[in-house]
């Protein structure tokens, strides 16, 4: 393949390249030419436009909602995760209370809500919505004065088989409390450690994806959420 090819033939080759019928070594040689030949790149773009007509004739099919949910999770802005990783990295550093206070100002995904509006039940005193910023809530959590958390699954993420979402509380002193898996559906009652119960409003909440059935001391998997309780 030469740069000196007849323009019409070059254009046809560009068409076959976009169509996909230019294969093997001929395709590789064509791609090498593309690097240094702006006119050839223009020819390719023109063929992309023309052959896209084949796609236009297809009847539109709305993808299942699950696809958007997965995409949405993947494009979550990174800063939230980096913040959490820094927080976790500090544990159990003495500076944690200051970090938690700073995080409480920065993390906007935490919404204190009167649950009556969302849950349509008798409103509890305080609650927490576990949600990605601007996204539908994944879980609603409310604190029962008897020392329990009532957790309700609203729209939890779809996980890979063999994994589960684990709820963690980090006390102001830096102690990490694994509270167990969050429900995939329905509700769950989670007992709070005595040392946390009275100081929940000072705690930091983390949700991570961990291998199901394992017991870990600290979150080690992908972080789904973090924020101050602020009850």
């Amino acid at each position, binding site marked *: 393949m030469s740069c000196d090819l007849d323009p019409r033939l070059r*254009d*046809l080759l560009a*068409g*076959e390249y976009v*169509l*996909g*019928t230019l*294969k093997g070594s001929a395709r590789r040689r064509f791609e090498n030419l593309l690097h240094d030949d702006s006119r050839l790149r223009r020819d390719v*773009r023109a*063929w*992309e*436009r*023309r*052959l*896209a*007509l*084949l*796609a*236009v*004739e*297809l*009847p*539109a*099919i*709305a*993808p*299942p*909602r*699950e*696809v*958007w949910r*997965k*995409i*949405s999770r*993947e*494009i979550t*802005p990174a800063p939230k995760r980096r913040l959490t990783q820094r927080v976790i990295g500090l544990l159990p550093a003495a500076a944690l209370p200051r970090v938690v206070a700073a995080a409480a100002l920065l993390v906007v995904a935490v919404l204190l809500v009167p649950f009556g509006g969302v849950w349509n039940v008798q409103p509890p005193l305080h609650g927490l919505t576990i949600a990605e910023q*601007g996204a539908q809530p994944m879980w609603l959590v409310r604190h029962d004065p008897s020392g329990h958390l009532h957790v309700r699954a609203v729209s939890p993420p779809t996980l890979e088989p063999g994994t589960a979402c684990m709820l963690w509380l980090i006390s102001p002193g830096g102690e990490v409390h694994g509270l167990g898996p969050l429900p995939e559906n329905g509700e769950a009652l989670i007992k709070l450690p005595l040392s946390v119960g009275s100081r929940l409003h000072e705690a930091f909440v983390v949700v991570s994806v961990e291998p199901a059935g394992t017991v870990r001391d600290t979150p080690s998997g992908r972080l789904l959420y973090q924020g101050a309780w602020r009850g």
Partner: protein
Amino acid sequence: MVFHAAPASAVPASGVSPSEHTAIIRACLAACADGEREAFERLYRLTSARLYAVARRMLRSEALAQECLQDAYISIWRNAGRYRSDRSAPLTWMTSIVRNRALDILRVATREVAMDDPKIAGLLDAAAPLDGTQGPDYVPELHPCLEQLREEQRECLRLAYFDGLSHAQVAERMTVPIGTVKSWVRRALLQLRDCLG
């Protein structure tokens, strides 16, 4: 297998001209380049039904098409800043991303077929209709420039464009000599270029 009705926003809504629709998509892409998630969500609402149709047609599998669409939109989000509006229409650019991802998936799946995996072979059975989309009564709405081609020419283009087939594979599929396929493809391309400019 469940198909959701295509939202009205999948195609230009009544009252919005195609050029306005394109301008909206272009603006969404520009906003995505600035990291605006809401614009990305809008872009998805406006375009996903079109692009999912491409992925479904190419991969002939709901699961693979969803994987393809997911990867493609993540790529679109991450590369929105690279889109050049002076070089191509936004939907053409996005279609290329979906198609390239689908071709990658096809290549991997084809290798697995070579390993005699009946599951994958079944997924890619070219004879299988696209449930709910292209039954025997389905008649595509053809662009006039495509309509002027002979049906066998269009079929050659579709088999190459959507299924990633070579001349020889198209010839085998259509049970005609490879020279005939090459001739049909070349004439079809020349006619399209003359018609579309």
